[in-house]
């Protein structure tokens, strides 16, 4: 049923320069309540896809539908209206460095609601409690570790109980403990809020342990999709190399270059 899908993307193309497509012919469906990963190596177009869903950029061709609304047809007021029901966790948290932890989490509540300061205080403490950092509400972002900053950013992203959570590389640069905490929080918050989550990542094992479904992008095209088990068992060489982290394969180890001998001028020496 169409209404069961929060996000429907059909035949989407995106490019900066028409000769070099960033995304082409993307079809994707994300059912409500699920945690879905968009995976692929760096430069495969996964962050661009996330931005198309968030309305930061508009698809050049095709349709991006979020909760039944065509994102590429919305004006800026419509996009802002839609974003009030979205939360996004940025790669390094993107906390406002001039505001305390408390004020960061309260930011959206103050901007978008007429709640009293007392109610905001209670809500902020509830959100911080959910990520285990109620005791850190007075700290400034510069006083937080990377993992803590990511958790505060998560509390800020869920401030208005979003229907859709977008995670841009949530595991990058975290120690194993913080990584586990963030991974558990993504699942727990998704289920507690009744939200839908999209995780853009290239951290394979964490993602496969966490999500319900995986879309795999390569060079701007959707080359594979399936449940984590299906992805692990997949024979498709690109996916296999990615899932098992093999150094060489369809994605070559060497950046395209001239012949090695030519770069070392071995030919010239032989003749000289």
């Amino acid at each position: 049923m169409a209404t069961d899908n929060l996000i429907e993307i059909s035949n989407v193309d995106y490019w900066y320069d028409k000769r070099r497509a960033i995304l082409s012919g993307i079809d994707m469906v994300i059912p409500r309540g699920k945690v879905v990963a968009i995976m692929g190596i760096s430069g495969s177009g996964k962050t661009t896809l996330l931005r198309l869903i968030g309305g930061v950029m508009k698809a050049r061709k095709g349709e991006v539908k979020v909760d039944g609304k065509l994102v590429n047809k919305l004006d800026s007021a419509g996009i802002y209206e839609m974003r009030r029901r979205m939360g996004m966790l940025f790669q390094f948290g993107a906390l406002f460095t001039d505001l305390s932890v408390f004020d960061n989490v309260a930011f959206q509540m103050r901007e978008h609601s007429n709640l009293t300061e007392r109610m905001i205080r209670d809500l902020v403490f509830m959100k911080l409690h959910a990520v285990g950092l109620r005791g850190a509400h007075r700290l400034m972002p510069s006083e937080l570790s990377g993992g803590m900053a990511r958790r505060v950013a998560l509390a800020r992203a869920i401030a208005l109980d979003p229907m859709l959570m977008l995670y841009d590389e949530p595991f990058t640069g975290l120690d194993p403990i913080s990584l586990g905490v963030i991974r558990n929080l993504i699942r727990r918050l998704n289920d507690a809020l009744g939200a839908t989550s999209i995780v853009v990542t290239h951290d394979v094992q964490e993602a496969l342990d966490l999500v319900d479904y995986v879309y795999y992008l390569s060079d701007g095209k959707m080359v594979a999709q399936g449940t984590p088990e299906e992805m692990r068992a997949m024979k498709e060489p690109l996916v296999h190399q990615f899932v098992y982290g093999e150094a060489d394969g369809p994605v070559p180890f060497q950046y395209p270059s001239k012949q090695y001998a030519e770069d070392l001028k071995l030919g010239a020496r032989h003749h000289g």
Partner: protein
Amino acid sequence: MAERAVFSVRRLGHTTSDIVIRLGYAVRFIVLTLLHSGTSFRRFGLIIRELYYTGVQSLIIILVSGLFVGMVLGFQGYHTLQTYGSESALGVLVALSLVRELGPVVAGLLFASRAGSAITAEIGLMKATEQLSAMEMMAVDPISRVVAPRFWAGFISMPLLAAMFSAMGIFGGYLVGVVLIGVDEGSFWSQMQSAVDFREDIVNGVIKSVVFGFAVTWIALFQGYDAPPTAEGVSGATTRTVVTSSLAILGLDFLLTSLMFRGI
């Protein structure tokens, strides 16, 4: 040879079109800032906070520089005036130099290097660390929430800083001329009072400082907002703010002075 000529012409064309495009962006940016200023005035606390950072924190450098510039004017003015036996006009010389020219120009240059560079670096770093993108994703427009309050704070604080610079400079001139050298205090103040015209001198000086405040804040905000989101990009933008603002102040000063002196 012909190929090189074509290459040079093409590069010239690219550079020119880049400049025109950036100017277009800058104009669009300031128009958007002015149009999205409603939030700043509805929540005046946002402007007050920025007034503290751009205005109050610039006070020390403005006041100290004003004092020194005034004291130098006192020495130099006395030295020149006594040659013609008119050292009693020292107050006029100090006051007119400061109110008409040095106050707005030097305060503007100091403002550009103290507050302008800070604004560019702050906004550039906010962009580089995705804080502006995060704000947009939270359905909060960074132009109205971050840019507009800083613009109005700069616009308001610049004339006030220039006025304080001039006042401090006059005090510096008094210290050197009257207290140190011994010029007659009565003639120092009375000649100043009768010679300085409110409309011709003070208002014109205030107009200059308002224009400089607009220009410096616009340049600083645009450079920050437009900076490439890297360490190198932000440092380049900060340098460009100081250089462009300083040139803009001096160029605009010439333009405004020639317009103001047209009737004389």
